[in-house]
């Protein structure tokens, strides 16, 4: 087992354990902090694949911005163990069954997809994740979808401002 594999297994275990802890933590603030750990582990995977730009953007957008917003809201509402609504057992069971079904479908899909099983991930030498190549792909090959999605974001932002203004 070489160094890359050790790092891969460590990051994967970290991501899975943290993702489980997001669900299992009683305290909502702890859940959010575990979610931040998940994002760090995923960023580590991106760096292993030599996608440095993706890793950094993942940190900026998710760990830096969205999770800080989550923390803000949860801390301001002062949620804790007592205020968390207790769902009844039937709802929990139904959630477990439907989630398990989705997991089974995803696993079978991954097993059937020949394109994934025949190829191995390129460690350290893939270069599509570097900022220059990614920028060329985004602004050259996929420029129309990229611009349309930016218009979508703009309209979402305008919508948020309109809702916030309505007193």
């Amino acid at each position, binding site marked *: 087992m070489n160094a890359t594999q050790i790092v891969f297994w460590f990051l994967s275990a970290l991501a899975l354990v943290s993702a489980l802890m997001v669900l299992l933590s009683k305290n909502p603030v702890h859940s959010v902090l575990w979610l931040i750990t998940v994002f760090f582990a995923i960023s580590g995977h991106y760096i292993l694949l030599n996608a440095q*730009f993706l890793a950094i953007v993942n940190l900026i957008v998710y760990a830096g911005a969205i999770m800080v917003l989550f923390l803000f809201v949860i801390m301001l509402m002062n949620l804790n163990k007592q205020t968390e609504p207790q769902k009844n057992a039937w709802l929990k069971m139904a959630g477990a069954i439907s989630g398990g079904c989705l997991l089974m479908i995803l696993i079978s899909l991954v097993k059937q997809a020949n394109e994934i099983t025949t190829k191995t991930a390129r460690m350290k030498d893939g270069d599509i994740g570097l900022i220059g190549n990614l920028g060329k792909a985004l602004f050259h090959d996929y420029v129309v979808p990229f611009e349309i999605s930016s218009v979508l974001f703009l309209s979402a932002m305008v919508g948020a401002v309109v809702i916030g203004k309505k007193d």
Partner: protein
Amino acid sequence: MFSLEGITKAIDTWLNAHFNSTVVLLAECVLVGVAAIALFAVLGLGLVWMERKVAAVMQIRLGPNRLGPKGIFQTSADTLKLIMKEGLTPDGADKFLFNLAPFIVMIVAMLVLAPISFAKNFQIWDINIGVLYVSAVSSLSVIGILMAGWSSNNKYSLLGAMRSGAQIVSYELSAGLAIISIVVLTGSLSINDIIQSQQNGWWIFKGHIPAIISFIIFIIAVTAETNRAPFDLAEAESELTAGFHTEYSGMKFALFFLAEYINIFIVCSIGATLFFGGWMPLHIGNWEAFNHIMDFIPSSIWFFGKTIFLIFLIMWFRWTFPRLRVDQLLNLEWKYLLPISLFNLLLMTVVAIMGWHF
């Protein structure tokens, strides 16, 4: 001639001559870690002393002058006192997060050190998106601050952390746009490329008015991002006792205090790199003789000189401007700095495309 590059080269060749490559790699990692921690300790002690001396000069008094020449050992004695003190954990606090938070803030400050180029060829990690890395990782320190404020289970701490978070998140935007305007001129995010592009003059001189505007925006935004006066609402003594670190004592408090000064050093070194050429000596166009004389001053001295000048500027602000109110603080960012920096970025793009810069 003295250079940090020479020292690293000598250590590298000595290690390679005596051990195999794995041991050399491990030894160099340990050396880099030790050097980073030593830099932190020296910076913490030195900058706190400098702050007290600058404050004293501004207020026409002497400042620390008992321990050592000009009171230079005062901060070491203070640190010794903080180490001896008991680190209390409040009863109602979330114990684990409360004790973790100072280390998170410190580790984030340490991570930002990686792509900074201290002297010619003296850099820990030459990542090709260095500037983006710095702004991404430095935005993570807000998580540590929010953690500290929330886990203290104290209203003052929570309010301080909220203010600090809102401030850091909003001022990050203009700091980022100011950085991007230099990236537009350089065409690269790598710190090394940005420094190399200032071979024939620093960007603050070459970039005309847009570069000066973005430098002013940058220095305002980073002052706010490091929670320094006049933007120190997060720890406004008269309102919130000490903000998010009200409940901290002993060495855990010292870590927060140290992280603040380390963050000042880091943002000032980024400012020096982007606008004043990092370790690049003062070069004017193609005046060969003048440039050659300037090259005789070692690059590390240029870097630290520029950085300490910017740190002095930030300390100067503290005793010049009164503290802003929360609404004024947010108005300044969202109604003035952000539109100005967006327009400035547009102007800078025009300058870069037309090739109007030198």
